[in-house]
């Protein structure tokens, strides 16, 4: 977009959406947005970014206000809770038996149907680990991506470490549809030599059934409370108390729905942890005699090279000092008056 073709800047469009424009610019940007398609598209994109960021939701906390409550406040809290219970009882008494028994029946039916369906097909969250060694590191990484696309999987996490003096290591957590796990693993095995492999499965049927039953109960409670609110005849404070309770139950429902989706996702999509390690060809077939000779030769050459390099490094590090002190010693022995003779005499007298 050419900025100079527009009477407003892109940042101003954003500030307009955020309600952060000065009043003198607001009307101008609003009028421009009505007629400019490019700016309308920009506004839509900005709104979309904000909308997608809302995915990172945080559930309700259990934080309490610091400081010990006074005894009177504790008693007052207990009194309010008791009053709320009495209020709920008195309001729902005529319908309570029927509603409660119906709710229990519904919850039991939900639990039974969930158990029946789970009996037919247990819910297993599958996890697999695969460690491979490959000489063609880059090719294997590309092939892994193709395999992932072919089996309708997606990438959970990726780490690549490439130290200057060591082999590159590629760690990836892949999520693939559970029914595609075995063919995916079979294809990934072909990318290198398998160093280790493991598979495990966690049965989450009971967890799912419990969660489903609790969710049904919570929804029934929410419906009963909402019905209470519609037929309200109490004081405003009582109505507010019921609304507060509805908010709490809704919070619980949202949290349980999130847990349920996560659980289903774990079952529908298996987790596959893949580690690809770069290695030389010799490491891939250690039992071959030819490769053992090759390895031995390579190690011999490497140790010879290391020895020569070490000697040169030693000479460069200490050579000048050795030359200096050696030279001084020679001068002392040769040119000082009677130096060498005195030393010889001293040695002889000791003998």
């Amino acid at each position: 977009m050419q900025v100079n073709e527009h009477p407003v800047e892109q940042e101003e469009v954003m500030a307009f959406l955020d309600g952060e424009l000065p009043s003198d610019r607001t009307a101008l940007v609003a009028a421009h947005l009505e007629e400019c398609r490019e700016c309308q598209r920009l506004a839509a994109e900005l709104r979309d970014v904000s909308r997608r960021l809302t995915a990172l939701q945080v559930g309700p906390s259990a934080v309490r206000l610091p400081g010990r409550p006074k005894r009177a406040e504790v008693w007052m809290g207990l009194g309010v809770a008791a009053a709320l219970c009495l209020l709920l009882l008195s309001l729902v008494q005529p319908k309570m038996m029927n509603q409660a028994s119906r709710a229990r029946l519904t919850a039991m039916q939900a639990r039974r149907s969930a158990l029946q369906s789970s009996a037919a097909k247990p819910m297993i969250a599958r996890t697999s680990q695969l460690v491979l060694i490959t000489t063609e590191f880059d090719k294997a990484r590309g092939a892994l991506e193709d395999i992932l696309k072919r089996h309708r999987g997606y990438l959970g996490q990726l780490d690549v470490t490439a130290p200057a003096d060591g082999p590159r290591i590629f760690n990836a957590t892949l999520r693939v549809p559970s029914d595609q796990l075995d063919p995916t693993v079979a294809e990934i095995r072909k990318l290198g030599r398998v160093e280790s492999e493991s598979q495990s499965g966690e049965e989450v049927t009971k967890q799912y059934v419990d969660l489903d039953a609790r969710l049904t109960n919570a929804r029934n409670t929410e419906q009963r409370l909402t019905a209470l609110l519609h037929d309200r005849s109490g004081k405003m404070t009582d109505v507010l108390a019921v609304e507060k309770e509805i908010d709490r139950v809704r919070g619980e429902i949202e949290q349980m729905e999130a847990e349920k989706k996560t659980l289903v996702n774990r079952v529908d999509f298996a987790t596959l942890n893949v580690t690809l390690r770069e290695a030389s060809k010799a490491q891939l077939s250690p039992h071959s005699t030819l490769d053992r000779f090759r390895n031995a030769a390579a190690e011999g050459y490497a140790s010879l090279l290391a020895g020569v390099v070490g000697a040169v490094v030693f000479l460069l590090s200490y050579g000048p000092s050795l030359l200096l002190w050696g030279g001084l010693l020679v001068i002392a022995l040769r040119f000082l008056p009677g130096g060498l003779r005195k030393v010889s005499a001293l040695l002889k007298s000791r003998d």
Partner: protein
Amino acid sequence: MVSDETPSDEALMVEFQRGSRPALEELFARYREPIFGFFCRRLYLRERAEDLTQDTFLAVIRAKARYEPRALVRTYLYGIAMKLLAAERRKGFVVIPGATSVANDSADEVLWVRQALERLEEGDREILMLREYEQLSYGEIGSLLGLPVNTVRSRLFRSRMALKGQLDPAGSLENVKCK
């Protein structure tokens, strides 16, 4: 004259400075979840976020005389929260991706959002998060981070444009930054 209007945060803070516990409780009720969300989205650990939320209000109680009505209570609270967060990070706290704790209803979407946010430059990310999640105004963000409003605006725009590309679900292995 009796006013039916809800007291402002600043009025509550002044009441609290005069010794009113209910005023503090009302402030706590208003800001408990926002401050908890602030820590939770940055640390990904609910328990630690809850501790730090409590520490924030503890700091308010201990330093109640220090608050001056010139500043917004919201800015004051997030200022304390940011200092606690910085101290927590100095302790060498490491965020463990996947060690969870934020409740959500779409694991894929959350993963994309987290990865996209992590790729932003730290300062830009903080500005974006303060705007999108804490709903602070440009001026409030500027005073919290010590930046001019225009800088906040341009960096916020840059972050959003960067996210626009990164949040594309078509992104795959190529789009993931190697650590």
